[in-house]
Structures are given as structure tokens and as C-alpha cells.
């Protein structure tokens, strides 16, 4: 009798939840909401491409807490060949180019995070240098290891203040933007059109602390596949 009542309530709840909300719950599982607001983008510790440090306002968005895993990616792209540096089901997918990444996110009704979104999310609510804090610490992230060490699973180490894992280290992550200088003048804005490289962020297991500083920018031809570059998806918030 008690079991029947429980079943009745469960069914009733599902009946009452609008279908689009149920869909949202599934899609947004394992994502974090990054609130609207300003943050400081860029770093003075890099080169001219990270300068100037400037304020950016972003609308609220959601971003995956984890890098996309091999298993998740292969449900959509079963022919994907895993890297020996990231071989397990729950290891981050690598050996994918920017187009593979964006195509995967589209199939999840998502997109790649913009460069600004990625940096804001990685800095956490406090605006740290690394996703795990201000001081480089190998016990908090997978970086500065031997090249043979490889990637760890997407849920390794502690998340940052937004609940995001491995923003600094583990594998590099593609973001949506084409590379351009942080535009200061009209000339530079015009120059930026000519660039043909996408941005990757966050460093990987074999990079030193410099590269996992979340303000650092690195550019790469979007067609290149590397065993140290993965991605995660982001979603707009319906207003």
C-alpha cells in the first residue's frame, strides 16, 4: 500500500513538471551557473596579448563542471580515437579539433564558452590567478608533470568556487573566440579580423605554472588535434 502511494506521488511529480523543465534539468546536470556581472580579464604576468587587464561585463551563463570525457564524446562520435595520454572512459577527450568541439556542443544544445566566459568561470568568485587559488600548488591540480604522466579523470582534484573541475591544468580547453588583441584602437580591431587562430586556455598536465594561469592566452589553428587539448560546453540562460 505504502509502495503504491509512493509510486503515485512520483508519477504525479513527473506529470506536473513541464516537459521543457525536465529537459533543462537533464541538460544542466553537472553544470554551474555563473552569475551576471563584471570581472577583470587579462593578466600583467604574460605578454602583450594578455594586456591590458580590463573590466568585462557578462550576462549569466551556465558552464559544464567537467571537461567532456571520452565516453561522453564517443556517444556522439563513436569513431573517435583516444589518446594514450588520456585513455580511460572518464578521462578528458583529446585529439579533437575546434570544429569537433563545437559540433559536439551543438548536439547538446550548447556552445563553446567564449574566452571571457571561460576566464571568468575559471577565476571563480574570488578572481584567482589559478582556478584553485593564488599560489601554484601541484597538490591541487594536474600540471608540471612529466609528459608521460598524462591526463587525470575529469572529476579529479577539488573544484573551484563555482564548482568547476580542472580549469587550470589536466588538458587545454578550446574556447569559442578567434584570436585577437584585446582591442584598444580601431586599427587593432581591424587587424584582428585577419587572425585565423582560435584560443586555448588552462594548460595541461605537462605545462608549468605559467601556462595554467587562467589569464594566459594561447592561439592555435582550429584544425589541429593535439593529445593535450579538450573542451567543455556552455549554455545561455533563457531570459
Amino acid at each position, binding site marked *: 500500500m505504502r509502495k503504491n502511494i509512493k509510486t503515485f506521488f512520483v508519477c504525479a511529480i513527473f506529470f506536473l513538471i513541464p516537459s521543457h523543465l525536465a529537459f533543462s534539468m537533464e541538460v544542466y546536470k553537472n553544470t554551474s551557473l555563473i552569475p551576471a556581472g563584471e570581472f577583470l580579464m587579462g593578466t600583467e604576468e604574460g605578454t602583450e596579448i594578455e594586456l591590458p587587464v580590463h573590466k568585462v561585463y557578462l550576462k549569466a551563463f551556465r558552464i559544464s563542471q567537467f571537461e567532456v570525457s571520452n565516453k561522453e564524446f564517443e556517444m556522439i562520435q563513436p569513431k573517435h580515437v583516444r589518446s594514450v595520454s588520456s585513455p580511460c572512459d572518464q578521462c578528458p577527450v583529446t585529439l579533437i579539433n575546434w570544429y569537433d568541439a563545437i559540433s559536439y556542443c551543438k548536439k547538446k544544445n550548447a556552445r563553446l564558452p567564449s574566452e571571457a566566459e571561460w576566464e571568468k568561470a575559471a577565476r571563480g568568485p574570488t578572481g584567482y590567478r589559478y582556478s584553485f587559488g593564488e599560489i601554484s600548488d601541484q597538490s591541487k591540480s594536474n600540471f608540471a608533470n612529466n609528459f608521460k604522466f598524462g591526463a587525470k579523470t575529469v572529476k579529479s582534484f577539488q573544484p573551484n568556487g563555482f564548482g568547476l573541475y580542472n580549469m587550470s591544468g589536466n588538458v587545454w580547453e578550446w574556447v569559442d573566440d578567434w584570436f585577437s588583441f584585446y582591442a584598444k584602437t580601431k586599427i587593432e580591431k581591424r587587424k584582428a579580423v585577419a587572425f585565423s587562430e582560435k584560443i586555448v586556455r588552462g594548460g595541461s598536465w605537462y605545462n608549468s605554472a*605559467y601556462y595554467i594561469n587562467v589569464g594566459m592566452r594561447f592561439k592555435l589553428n582550429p584544425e589541429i588535434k593535439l593529445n593535450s587539448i579538450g573542451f567543455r560546453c556552455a549554455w545561455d540562460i533563457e531570459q
Partner: protein
Amino acid sequence: MFGIKISSDWNISENDTTAEEIYLNRRKFIENVGKLGSNILAFGAFSNFLNPIQVSAENLISRKITRRNTKKLIDFQENITSENLTSRYNNFYEFGTNKADISFLAKKLKVGQWSIKVEGLVHKPKVLDVDKIIQAMPLEQRVYRLRCVETWSAIIPWSGFPLRELIKLSNPLSTARYVKFKTFIDPNIAPGQKNRFWEPWPYVEGLSMSEAMHNLAFLAIGMYGHQLNPQNGAPIRLVVPWKYGFKSIKSIESIEFVKEPPRTFWQTVSPLDYDFWANVDPTVPYAKWDQRFESPLGREKKEKTMLYNGYAAQVRKLYS
């Protein structure tokens, strides 16, 4: 004891190869090195350390002038590679992949306050100031053949000291089997480390302990009679003449004694093309290039490459 040492069997004879102006430049270089150490010149031991060099250099120059004939003069001018070439045709991927750009790009390298970390299997890890190392070591000049894996070659007069002297100073444990060398990492001054971010910086190279202790393994602090140029690996670099040039790591910042062969930069980047040993061997095509012949910089005619780059008599025993 500081002085010019010319080993009998392996050295490219200075009478045959080294220009007089190189010796004169070297005198200036040695004087400069002396200035670096002027703060300790007050100590008797150090003043003894400097004076014999200058005397020795003068003696060598005068002996050379009296011995050589016109033909020899032509020989040495042809044999030694022009510094114009060796300072403008450089592999130093930290700064880029275009050889012609490196001398310009590497100017950003600040070599003034340079130290080397000694770590790993040692009795006591330490940080050594390069200026002090230079003052403490038995400096000498050696003219070595350099053979790049890309099949170009050069003959260069280096100034420096045997690597084994630094190893003795490092006092490694008996369990140390290999020496791992690392160069600097600073993507803000080295655009290659920024633009080629996916490569495993910093550059790492390694030698077995027996190789590192061999008399020919050399740490250079100068070339052509002056301090090393940044593009040539200032302020201190390895020179291992029987191996392909990429083993001779530049701008060394760390020396670590380890048990296992260290995984080197090129092994990591392209494991099928590069091995740890990388000894010059014309019979084995290596890293995409046919190694039977080489193109000496500044010459049109190719030459046959020699086993162990011509140093087989000295180093063969290491591998038997």
C-alpha cells in the same frame, strides 16, 4: 690550474685551425672573465688563477706565428667556421623556428644574474652562481666539430671547462646513473615557448654518468674568444661533440642527477624520430635525415660524416 690545454689525440690542431685574431679576442674575453671575478682578486689564489692564462696565450700566439707557414694560414682560415655564420644560423626553438631570426629574438635573454640548480641524487642540493663557477673552474679552449642532426656542421672554438669538473663539485650520490639538464622557461621573453605552447618546455637533455664524466663532454661559457652570445646558449651550455647538436643543451638552468634516463625534449615531441643516445652515425638515417653526408656552414661541397663525428677513438669505449 688555469691554462690552455690542448689534448693530443682529439683536438683539431690550433696551428691548423685557429686564427690569430681569435686568440687575441680570447685574451680580451679572459680579461673580461677576470673582471667578473675582480671582487675576489684580492685573494692570492685567484690572482695566480688569472696571470698564467695571459702568459700562456701570448706564448701560444708567438709559437704559432713562428711555426706556421702560408699554407697553414690558409688551412685554418678555411677550416674554422666563420662566426658570422655560427652566430646567425641558430636552432633555439625557445625563440622561434626560423634560424635567421634567433640572433635578434634571443637578445631578450637576460644572462647577467644566472644560476644553476644542482638537484636530485646529490649529497646536498645547491644553487651555483655561474660567475662563481667560471671563476672556480679550470678554463680552457677547445676546437670541436659540431654536427647538427639536420646535416649541417661547423667547427667552433669554445671556451669553458670539462663537464666532469662541475659534476665533481656537485657531489652526486653513487646511485646517480644519468644527468638531466634543463634550460630556462620564460615564455614572456622566449616567443617559442608561448607560440608553441603545446611543446614540453623547458628543453630537457640528458647524458649517462659515464658520458658526462668523459673528458670530451664540455661546458662552454665562450666561443671565438668572447662570452657566448645569447643565441649560442649564453651564459653556459653543454658541448658534446660526438653527439648530434640537439644534445648540447643551451642556457642551462638546472642539473639533476637521476637513476633513469631522463625523457628529453625531442624524445617527447617525436619519440619515433629521436632516441636518448643520438650519437653521430653516418650508417643510420636519423630523425628524418640521411646522415651519410654533411654540409659544413659556409662551404658548397658536402663532406662525409664520420662515426661519432670523428671522435670514435675517444668515445667508442663508452658504448662497447
